[in-house]
C-alpha cells in the first residue's frame, strides 16, 4: 500500500472539523478520484496529506512510514506533491524559472535541465513561452505550467485539486489527457474534481466524500452509475448522456 489515511480529523484554525475521522487507502500506480458535494472536505483532505494543513487527530502513513504532521518540503522529499486549485505559480518569474523552482529540492543542475526539456515535450506551448512571466499566461497555460512544475521532482504520488476549474473545455481536455497518462509515468494520482464525469473517466477508483467522511468507494465506472451519487449531489439520480 502506498498511502494509508486512518481516522483523520482536521479543520482550519479555530474552526470546526472539516474532516471527521476519514479513512482511505491508496495503492501504487493507480489513478483515484475524490468526489463529493461542496464542503465535503475533498480539498482539505489533499491539504492534510500534502502537509499544508495539520491533522487534529488520526494518522497518515506513506509507504509504511508515519508522515502525519510533516512539512510540505519533507513530504515532497518523499515524492508526494500537490497541485492546488488556487493560483500557485510565481507570477513574476518566467515559465522556465517556475519549472526550476519545481525542482527546488534537486541539486543536480543537469537533471533539472533535462526535466525542463521533458516538461516542454509534454506541454510544447510552455517551451514557446519559456521566457514569459508566468502571470501573463492564460488559465489553461497556467494549469499546464502547474502540472509541469509538479512533475519536475518525478513524484511518486501527485495530488491535483480541481484542475479544470475556470478552464475552457478545450484546455481542460488537454489537462485531463495529461492526467490520464500519469500512471504510464509510474505516478499515483489522487484527483479532486467537481466535474464528476470527467474525473471518473480518467480514474480507476473513486472515493465519495460527504460532510468530512467517506460515504462509499468503488471502481470509477461503477460509481458513475451508482444512484447514490445523484442523491448526494442533487437529491435524484444523475443525468448521464
Amino acid at each position, binding site marked *: 500500500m502506498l498511502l494509508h489515511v486512518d481516522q483523520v480529523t482536521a479543520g482550519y*484554525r479555530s474552526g470546526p472539523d472539516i474532516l471527521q475521522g476519514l479513512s482511505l487507502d491508496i495503492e501504487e500506480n493507480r489513478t483515484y478520484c475524490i468526489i463529493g458535494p461542496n464542503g465535503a472536505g475533498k480539498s482539505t483532505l489533499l491539504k492534510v496529506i500534502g502537509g499544508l494543513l495539520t491533522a487534529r487527530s488520526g494518522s497518515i502513513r506513506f509507504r509504511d512510514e508515519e508522515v502525519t504532521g510533516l512539512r*510540505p518540503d519533507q513530504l*515532497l522529499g518523499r515524492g508526494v*506533491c*500537490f497541485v492546488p486549485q488556487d493560483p*500557485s505559480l*510565481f507570477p513574476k*518569474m518566467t515559465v522556465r524559472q517556475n519549472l526550476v523552482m519545481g525542482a527546488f*529540492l534537486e541539486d543536480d543542475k543537469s537533471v533539472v535541465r533535462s526535466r525542463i526539456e521533458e516538461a516542454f515535450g509534454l506541454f510544447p506551448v510552455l517551451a514557446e513561452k519559456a521566457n514569459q512571466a508566468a502571470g501573463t499566461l492564460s488559465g489553461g497555460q497556467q494549469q499546464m505550467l502547474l502540472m509541469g512544475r509538479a512533475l519536475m521532482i518525478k513524484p511518486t504520488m501527485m495530488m491535483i485539486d480541481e484542475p479544470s476549474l475556470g478552464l475552457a473545455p478545450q484546455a481542460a481536455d488537454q489537462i485531463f489527457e495529461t492526467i490520464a497518462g500519469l500512471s504510464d509515468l509510474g505516478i499515483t494520482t489522487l484527483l479532486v474534481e467537481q466535474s464528476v464525469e470527467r474525473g471518473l473517466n480518467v480514474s480507476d477508483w473513486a472515493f465519495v466524500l460527504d460532510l468530512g467522511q467517506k460515504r462509499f468507494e468503488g471502481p470509477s465506472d461503477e460509481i458513475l452509475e451508482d444512484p447514490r451519487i445523484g442523491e448526494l449531489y442533487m437529491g435524484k439520480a444523475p443525468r448521464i448522456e
Partner: protein
Amino acid sequence: MIQILILGLLLGGVYALMASGLTLLFGVMRIVNLAHGALMVVAAYVSFFLFTELGIDPFLSLVVTMPTMFLVGVVVYRWLFTRLEGTDRYSEMTVLLTFGLALVIEGLLGYFFTGIFRSTSPGYATNSFIVGDLFIPRGQLYGSLTSLALILGLWLFLNFTKTGYAIQALTQNRTAAQIVGVNVRRVSTLSFGIGMALAGAAGSLLSYLFTFFPGQHWQWIALLLSLIVLGGLGSLAGAVVGSLLLAVLAAFVSNWLGSTWSPMTFYLALFIILLVRPQGLFGEKETV
C-alpha cells in the same frame, strides 16, 4: 542646483539601505516591522561605543553590527513571531508586536544610555571633496557607496543563489513556495535575520551621519515607511528608487523653503502616493 542634487542622492543612498531591510521583511513575511528604526538606533549605539571606547571606525563596526543584528533577528523571529503563525490576524498581530518591541527597545536604551543626543565623529564625517564649485561630503559619499554596495550584494544574493530564489518565491506566493519544497520557516527566519543585518548596517552609518537618541526611531520609521510605500511595499528596486527620489525632493524643498519643511516632504509624498497610486511605483495592484 547640481549641488543640491548631489546632496540629495548621497542621502538617498543611505535611506535606501535603511529601507531595504524593511521592505524585504514586508515582501517575504508581510510584516510591517515598526521596530526597524529602533533596531537601527540599537546598532548606532553599538557603533558609537565601539568608536568612543575602542576607537573602531563606524565602517569597521559594520563587521560587528551586521552579524550581531542578524543573530538578534533570528532569535527575535524564532522566539516571538513563530508564536503568531497560523493565527487568524497574523499581519495585525505582527504590527502590534513590532510596535511593542519598539517601545521596549526605546525604554531599555533610555534607561541605560539616557536621552542624550549622540554621534560618532570620525575625521571624514566633517570633510568634503571639492570638485570645481561643488563639494561632496566625504562621510555621506562613503555612506552612500557602502549602502549601494550592500544593496547590490543583496540583489545578487536574491537573484543568483538558491536561497535567494526561495526568498523571492516566498515573496511572490507563500503557498506555492511551500508546495515546491521551500522550508518556509527557515527561509523566513533567514530573511528576518538579513533584514535585521541591514538595519544593523544602516545603524552604523546613522551613528556618524546623524545625531541619535533612544526616542528618535519614531522619526526614522515614519520616514522609512513613506519611502517603501512610494517604492511599492516589498520591492527592493522600489525602496531604492523611492529613497533616491524623496531624498532629492527633500533636499530641494530644504533649499527653497528651509530645512524645517524638509521632513514634511516625505509625509506629503506618502499622502499623495496613497491617493494616486496606492500600490507604489513598483508595486502591483492587488485584485480580488
